[in-house]
């Protein structure tokens, strides 16, 4: 058995470890480190927006900041933290396995991610600065090396880093999928899996099927950049100095389609595990089984399917045929059906719950409200008619920050507080945790809701200096510095989190095996879980994942009532 070969050297134990828990923590730390960088970029952006006359950055670097903030947050913080981090930590423990199906591949996937991060960060320091074509990397800005300063070396490094990211993420997804389908312990049928593991399974499937589209697009983009081909470059592009470029016949719209074929499913790769974490937390802190296990699973599958056929709603204003726009509108709004089921199940799970409002639970409740409010804005953007007005405005910025920003960050924090005792063996400080919650949720909601208003007032996203335009509504403009103050407050509030985590690693209250009285299998392993997860035999599953009965609470491996301690 693999668990008998416990690694002994420092390198094999902490650096090139095959152990899913070590790799998960490596991913989480890397993601949090990237989050600090992404956050600092955001603060610089906010400073420029609120006080444009001070010109804290140049117009070109402003575009780089926006691009890199988006790329880092979406791929290198949320994907890496929620999916790779928690996926690695929890999947084997949830299914009752000693490790991932392919431990070596798992180690490799992390060590492919590290150079991807380094390339992304390094691209700030090359000539011309980091990529500036937006996190969506639309051509021609991303395809012509001389378009803007960031289109040069910065964009090349961006593409290479993304290629490594995709390779790493695909290796991870293969591991999650195989582990969940194949390494389940005795008795662990699919319908006994914790909901979080279901969301990991579905996001792995989406990742495996959707990321290749971006790979193909990136390959063609590299050829456009370095071999002079015209996959995405149309005829008649004019440059001062060089004149009309020789490219012919390509279409930037093709890239947009390929990008969003990945880009839209990707947001579900992020949001679904966030909801999964929420389900786990509200079950443990509400002391009841989440409402509608099966309908949740089926709805998740529906969402996954629909997520792959709605990408065009990012392109309503691209001049697409209105009939195609209508199709994309209809399927987009259709997503509200399974999503409402999930949302109602989350809310229904609070009905008659015996809520213990500890830190993880607060974050979970925050996720539910952020998803509800964020989803509301989605209705306006999913409908082609209203999107014509809102497109590329701060309404969109507010919307996606409230959904894939707030929902996922709250779930990330909630997850860290919830599973901290399991992997560190100590609890975090409750008072600091609650303080962190309020310092996070208030500025986040205020900021992003106000951005919706700014968008309605006509403020355009990605503008270096919005004060130069006369059309935006004056009161919407006046909100700019306030949103920036909130952003600074949000960042400052995270210091509480940093202090809490670091302090608790060394001084936190020691935790028992199952500090929250939860029922899924990870809580039957010691805290912190050892190499191989369970010191003796792997548990055998006899019960549903959330058996909070009226006669008592039963972990999944409890065979009968006498077995309960």
């Amino acid at each position: 058995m693999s668990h008998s070969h416990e690694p002994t050297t420092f390198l094999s134990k902490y650096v090139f470890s095959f152990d899913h828990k070590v790799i998960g923590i490596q991913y989480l730390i890397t993601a949090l480190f990237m989050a600090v960088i992404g956050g600092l970029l955001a603060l610089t952006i906010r400073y420029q927006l609120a006080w444009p006359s001070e010109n804290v950055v140049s117009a070109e670097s402003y575009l780089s900041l926006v691009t890199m903030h988006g790329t880092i947050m979406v791929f290198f913080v949320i994907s890496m933290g929620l999916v790779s981090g928690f996926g690695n930590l929890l999947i084997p423990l949830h299914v009752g396995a000693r490790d991932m199906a392919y431990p070596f591949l798992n180690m490799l996937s992390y060590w492919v991610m590290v150079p991807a991060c380094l390339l992304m960060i390094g691209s700030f320091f090359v000539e011309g600065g980091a990529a500036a074509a937006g996190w969506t990397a639309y051509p021609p800005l991303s395809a012509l090396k001389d378009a803007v300063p960031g289109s040069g070396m910065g964009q090349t490094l961006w593409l290479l880093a993304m290629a490594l990211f995709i390779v790493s993420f695909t290796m991870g997804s293969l591991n999650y999928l195989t582990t969940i389908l194949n390494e389940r312990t005795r008795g662990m049928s699919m319908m006994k899996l914790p909901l979080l593991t279901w969301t990991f399974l579905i996001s792995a499937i989406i990742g495996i099927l959707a990321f290749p589209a971006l790979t193909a697009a990136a390959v063609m983009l590299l050829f456009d950049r370095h071999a002079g081909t015209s996959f995405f470059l149309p005829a008649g592009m004019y440059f001062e100095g060089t004149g009309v470029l020789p490219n012919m016949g390509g279409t930037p719209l093709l890239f947009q389609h390929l990008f969003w074929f990945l880009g839209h499913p990707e947001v579900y790769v992020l949001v679904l595990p966030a909801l999964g974490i929420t389900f786990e937390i509200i079950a443990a802190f509400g002391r009841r089984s989440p409402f509608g296990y099966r309908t949740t699973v089926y709805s998740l599958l529906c969402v996954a399917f629909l997520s792959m056929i709605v990408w065009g709603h990012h392109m309503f204003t691209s001049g697409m045929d209105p009939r195609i726009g209508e199709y994309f509108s209809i399927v987009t709004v259709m997503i509200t059906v399974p999503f409402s089921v999930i949302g109602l199940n989350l809310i229904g799970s609070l009905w008659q719950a015996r809520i213990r409002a500890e830190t993880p639970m607060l974050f979970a409740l925050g996720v539910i409200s952020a998803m509800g409010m964020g989803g509301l804005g989605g209705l306006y953007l999913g409908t082609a008619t209203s999107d014509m007005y809102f497109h590329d405005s701060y309404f969109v910025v507010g919307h996606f920050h409230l959904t894939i920003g707030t929902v996922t960050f709250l779930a990330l924090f909630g997850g860290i507080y919830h599973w901290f005792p399991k992997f560190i063996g100590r609890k975090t400080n409750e008072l600091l945790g609650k303080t962190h919650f309020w310092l996070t949720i208030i500025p986040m909601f205020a900021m992003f809701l106000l951005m919706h208003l700014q968008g309605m007032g006509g403020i355009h996203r990605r503008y270096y200096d919005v004060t130069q335009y006369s059309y935006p509504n004056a009161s919407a403009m006046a909100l700019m510095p306030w949103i920036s103050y909130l952003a600074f407050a949000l960042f400052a509030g995270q210091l509480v989190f940093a202090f809490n985590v670091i302090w608790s690693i060394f001084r936190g209250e020691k935790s028992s095996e199952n500090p929250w009285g939860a029922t899924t299998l990870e809580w039957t392993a010691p805290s912190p879980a050892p190499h191989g997860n369970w010191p003796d035999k792997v548990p055998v599953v006899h019960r549903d994942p959330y058996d909070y009965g009226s006669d008592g609470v039963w972990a999944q491996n409890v065979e009968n009532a006498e077995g309960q301690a």
Partner: protein
Amino acid sequence: MTAESLSRPVDPLSEAELKESSRKVGLLAFLSSVVMLFATFTAAFLVRRTGTDWKPLEMPEIMWISTWLLIGSSVTIEISRVTGRKMGLLVTLGLGLAFLFCQVKALSEMGGFSGALAENPHFSFIFVLLLVHALHLLGGIGGLFLTSLSSSRFGWVVTYWHFMGLVWIYVLVLLFLS
């Protein structure tokens, strides 16, 4: 313990059986990712060839040779699998390398990495698709090499090799016969 609580598929699997079955699941997932990759190129190809600058090229003769080489390599790997002789893997490996050589030759005959690549969009697609397929085949060649050295069973490499042969025939049909 009720029957329902034991609906974990086959139970209990031995460690070796579990490894083998995990390998199949992982391979299937990886191949579906490869399918999506080529599907994306297909979509791009179908869109791009409606452009006004599209100048279709004839298939170079040498690609018939490379195609037969790859089909032959699938036959030899199958013989090797059925008879259990690892020697056949090295024959397959040789045929695979010969295939790659023919592909490189076909590309350089058509203009190689020069102006032609930029001028003719059909050639751009031929170049990119041949390259992407060749890179995947190189993975298979690496797998053949490792499998021929190890004492273990044939593993994923046979399925993967057949699959890459099918992908090549698909690419050929897409590029020149569709």
